[in-house]
């Protein structure tokens, strides 16, 4: 196989980026409440869902970080 990058690395990076963006959006909403909040907005889903995604993404990014090609 030519490729060194695992599919799980791609998944990890994507989840990490999404987790950070969504978590930050949730934190921003604490000080800037939405004009038309969704139902159950009081649960602050973006914060915990984003954080969980970020942690899972970070784990996969580190675990499947591309290794240097041999030879």
């Amino acid at each position, binding site marked *: 196989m030519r490729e060194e990058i695992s*599919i799980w690395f791609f998944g990890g990076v*994507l989840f990490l980026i999404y987790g950070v963006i969504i978590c930050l959006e949730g934190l921003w909403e604490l000080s800037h409440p939405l004009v038309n909040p969704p139902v159950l907005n009081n649960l602050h889903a*973006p914060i915990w869902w984003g954080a969980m995604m970020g942690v899972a993404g970070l784990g996969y990014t580190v675990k499947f970080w591309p290794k240097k090609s041999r030879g």
Partner: protein
Amino acid sequence: MQLQPSVALSTYLATPAHSLAHLNAVDIAVIAIYFGMVIFIGFYLKGSANTSEEFFMAGREMTAWIAGLSFVSANLGSLELMGWAGSAYQYGILATHWYWIGAIPAMLFLGIIMMPFYYISKVNSVPGYLHLRYGDGARALSAVSFAFMTVLMSGINMYSMALVMKVVLGWNLNFSIWVSSITVALYVGLGGLRSAIYNEVLQFLLIWLGALLVPVLGLIDAGGWTNLKAQIGARLGSEYVHMWSTTGHFSQNPMGIHWTGLVFGLALVISCGYWTTDFLVVQRVLSANNLRSARMAPIIGAAFKMAVPFIVILPGLLALAVLPYHLVGESQAVATGQHSYNEVLPLMLVRYCGPGLLGLGVTALIAGFMSGMAGNVSAFSTVWTYDIYGAFLNKKATDQHYVAMGRWCTFIGVLISVGTAYLVQHAASIMDYVQGLFSFFIAPLFGTVILGMLWKRTTKAGGFWGLLAGTCTAIGLFLWVHLDPSALRYVALSADAKTLAEDMYRALWSWLVCVIVTVTVSYATKPKPLSELEGLVYGVVPLPVEHDDHWYQKPIVWAGIIAVLFVILNIIFW
């Protein structure tokens, strides 16, 4: 973080006056990152798709997990996600049958019984197996019908997604169709099956992450599962929350089905036909790196498939209890401006998801569409190149030529799909017939393949005439009911039967005709010598022995665990 979207992009994406939700810059960033990632994967894997084995079969290097997730993901198209969520709203928990009894036994059967024959014969496609077992006639019939139906389904999936995006988000129909299809063409055309599979795994993860919040928050909103059942029962009746107890008679459940149709028509014929002979899904398993992976892939896929109702069926049920308005059928929605059943999943996303999460949910829907379309076009290009072009039109081309043909076919397949999407836009009734059309070919094909694999006496003439007779029976029964609706009492065994029940019984009868004709013609014709059936038929040559270090590595053990879970779930939701 509440940024304003750029003016240019918002011109294309949103017309808020007519849409239910409005995406902000964070949502658009989430969607854009996804598109960037899938295209990057396509370019990255371009160098790994130089030979036909690499381009069409991903070099047969996929692990069981990757092949298994891709196997399920290729099936999770937009019709599958949004359509079945809508069906759950329309028919209640009965829709789960299409995920459990309509999938799990067939997937386990593929992994345990059928996969060894596909894998050790080293065929590149299901029509390729028919060629080895029955010759060119059965191969041509199967390849042409598959290629035709695949691009048709792809276009209908595309139109369904674009329509929902238009209604819910106000997106321009042309924008949705062209951006998503060009992206799929690019990454499949560049990286072949490997790129399609890599992206399908990514898309599968995204579908779960983007859609999982809806049932989680929805259950909190509805006060838990018990309260949800009570609310639906009080509003519509208890038949909406029971899977089997109301299937004793066609008129006792909202779907108008009977348990015999579910068990024999859906589980035995339609589901086995789809999951074991539809090349769209079988191609993913054939890319596995060894026989054990090829057997484990459908079993892993079955485990995930069993969980999909949580993100598809449950949102539809939740909508019955929590949405403050009523959804209607597609034609009524168009006439009255109300929302249709098919929009239930995006509507629930909009209900619970604010900026960022809404972008993630929309990305999940787009990912579902793209995984389904990539599955369709990659299977189309393989069947066209191997089983039509390479088998009948140009048998002696170089390997490089076939790879180039595969790349071109990917783009052409996408273009035909786009054309189909526009055709459906102007003739929506086509959508009503396509699901039925698909079963015309799948049910008899299963009869032909299973007899070919399990019975060495089956002959070339038996296979061809059985397949043809079964297909003609399915078409004939469809036309009979279409022209004379009272014929339903004969085809579906009851005048109370509804469309889905008719599909099940039509599939069952066409499969039976295929089997009877195949057996009869086979007995009347000369069988192939056993030496020509090696590796193709059960009992002719012993299957290779797999050496697992531990008992828990055996595919049969995992298949058993999934089967037990499947039975338990059906009892719980009886």
